């Protein structure tokens, strides 16, 4: 099973996210992460879906999405040809005994402490999912209070854009 990322350009109507997510659900396709937001043209939104599957599943997902009147364009974002990021906020216990260790991990991963209290601190980190997973693994020993992940956002490298594909 491979990991895939597709960017889906949709009309910026209410209910579109529901339609797209509902198609995945009813046809039994699993979503790993899904993010959505307006594009530089407010007429369109961009949904980034990451999922695990094979080529056949990917083709079927794209064909099913293509049939939806609100879907304008679909683009697969291949790993080598795209920048892929996820943003995570992690709240961990602040413990004097670990303080230096926490600082070093934050430093090595180029993360940021964005909220600092005597008993808890919140770290912000962006990166590819593998980096995030490794970071979470390392800070586990400090005691994770809660995590909030945005899910994957991605853009293709180079001058192209999903909107320029349709114009």
């Amino acid at each position: 099973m491979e990991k895939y990322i597709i960017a889906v350009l949709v009309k910026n109507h209410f209910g579109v996210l529901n339609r797209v997510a509902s198609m995945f659900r009813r046809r039994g396709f699993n979503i790993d992460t899904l993010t959505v937001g307006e594009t530089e043209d407010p007429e369109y939104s961009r949904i980034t879906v990451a999922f695990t599957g094979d080529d056949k599943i990917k083709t079927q997902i794209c064909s099913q999405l293509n049939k939806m009147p609100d879907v304008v364009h679909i683009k697969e974002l291949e790993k080598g040809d795209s920048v892929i990021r996820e943003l995570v906020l992690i709240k961990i216990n602040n413990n004097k005994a670990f303080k230096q260790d926490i600082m070093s991990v934050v430093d090595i991963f180029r993360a940021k402490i964005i909220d600092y209290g005597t008993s808890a601190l919140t770290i912000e980190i962006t990166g590819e999912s593998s980096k995030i997973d490794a970071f979470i693994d390392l800070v586990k020993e400090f005691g994770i209070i809660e995590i909030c992940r945005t899910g994957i956002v991605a853009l293709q490298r180079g001058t192209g854009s999903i909107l320029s594909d349709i114009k």
Partner: protein
Amino acid sequence: MKLSGSEILIRTLIEQNVDVVFGYPGGQVINIYDTLYEHQNEIKHILTAHEQGAAHAADGYARVTGKVGVVIATSGPGATNLVTGIATAYLDSVPMVAITGNVSCSLIGRDSFQEVDITGITMPITKHNFFVNRVSKLADTVREAFRLAMSDRPGPVLIDIPKDIQTALWDYEPQDAIVPDEKYAAHDDGLAEAVRLINEAEKPYIYCGGGVISGDASEEVKALAEKTDSVIGCSFMGVSAIPTAHERFLGMQGMHGHYASSMAQHHADLIIAVGARFSDRATGNKAKYAPNAKIIHIDIDNAEIDKNIPVTCGLCGDVKLTLGELIAQVEKKQHPAWQKEVAGYREEEKRHEVKRESMNPQNVIACINRCKDADTVIATDVGQHQMWAAQYCDFAKPRKFVSSGGLGTMGFGLGAAIGAQIGSGKKAILVTGDGSFGMCLNELATAVSYHIPVVIVILNNGVLGMVRQWQTLFFNQHYSNTVLDRKTDFVKLAEAFGAKGYRCTEMADFSEKLQAALAGNEPVLIECLIDKDEMVLPMLPPGGSMDDIIVERPGD
């Protein structure tokens, strides 16, 4: 000129050449019904007994005419009663526009009286749906709904219109009726590969789905079969695409398909699937499906290609245009060995024919075949009677068989027969069973009120026959909740609704009653008493392949 939303709606329907709608009034569509009253000379409204019947009627109307069927229902229960009808149309790719009223925008989301989120509910069973929140968008939304319903692979579209949108005023500019999106043939690269596969084939088999009917490609299928010396079979949805009497036509294939058709498909070295979707009912066990065949799949819906069965060559395009390209490019071939092999399957099929004098399904359908003409519409409900109709009814023209294939909706038949009769202007025969008929028989009232010449033939075996058949074959004769043993008197029931009703136990009597009914112009119900252990055969057991085919009733 400023018009109300409901006036804009009805004028836009008239603009789309809609002359009949099916529906049921209610609080949140009362304005629409007021406008229908004003326009009753332009649009005829057929009032059914239940919204489900209206949805099935719009579906039946669309299946026989190829036009978009239109149904109107109120909010809440009116809208939810459409759901089975919309899902039926969706699974069989029938063009339909369903219009529902809803509570005013200010009341939406507050669990108001008769409020339901019908766009949410119907999202997975429509091609698309709309919630109209501005009257300025209403006319274009209706036009877009018609375009979507008709274009590419047809299907149902729902428009939900809150009450305040129906009363709000806006400008209306009439436009021409929407035409479906332009059709296109499959891409040249795929065509070239398909041509090569066809030229190399020794045992070609054309598998027609419902897309041959909706894509108006019957003539092209026949022409391709002629040029390539292929035989032709069909899925349940493809029944009536090719005339029964056509020399290359072997009938329906699959779970209850004709022996010769299923065998030819199983042994073919090339299957050309046209407007079909390799449903589990058509293929049996997919792992053992046509083991030696390469497959060309032509469909307007790209998502169908490789969805259920991996194919050798997928051609996404209009079936009529794509077949036209193939016919022009393939070599003319003769396959005498293949034709001889298929003739052998036909011989074998003949040996399993049921030849009993009594009143049985085969004889009833044979009698219907003798009494009907080429334009008569055959509608069915769902179950054993449906399979017998698909197996034994003769068809000379497409769009004469109206039945719920994908969803398998018991209770579909009577509403659909009424809509089909209105759409075709010809006689309609509903072949049904006592179980299915019991589900939506209230539409007898509609047939009587509108003098619909529909002949209802109930094959009454007193049981839920199809489930019983499975219980007999696979569940140790445990007849769990399938013995109806009801005291319903169908003759009196028909009379109570104001129709004529007859009960027949002899074939001669049935023949006489059927002819008289078809000569008249009113609904007639004829109940035929048949044995509870009649079976639909052949049968591929669930999950089975051609090796497991059952051709005879155990003990026969």
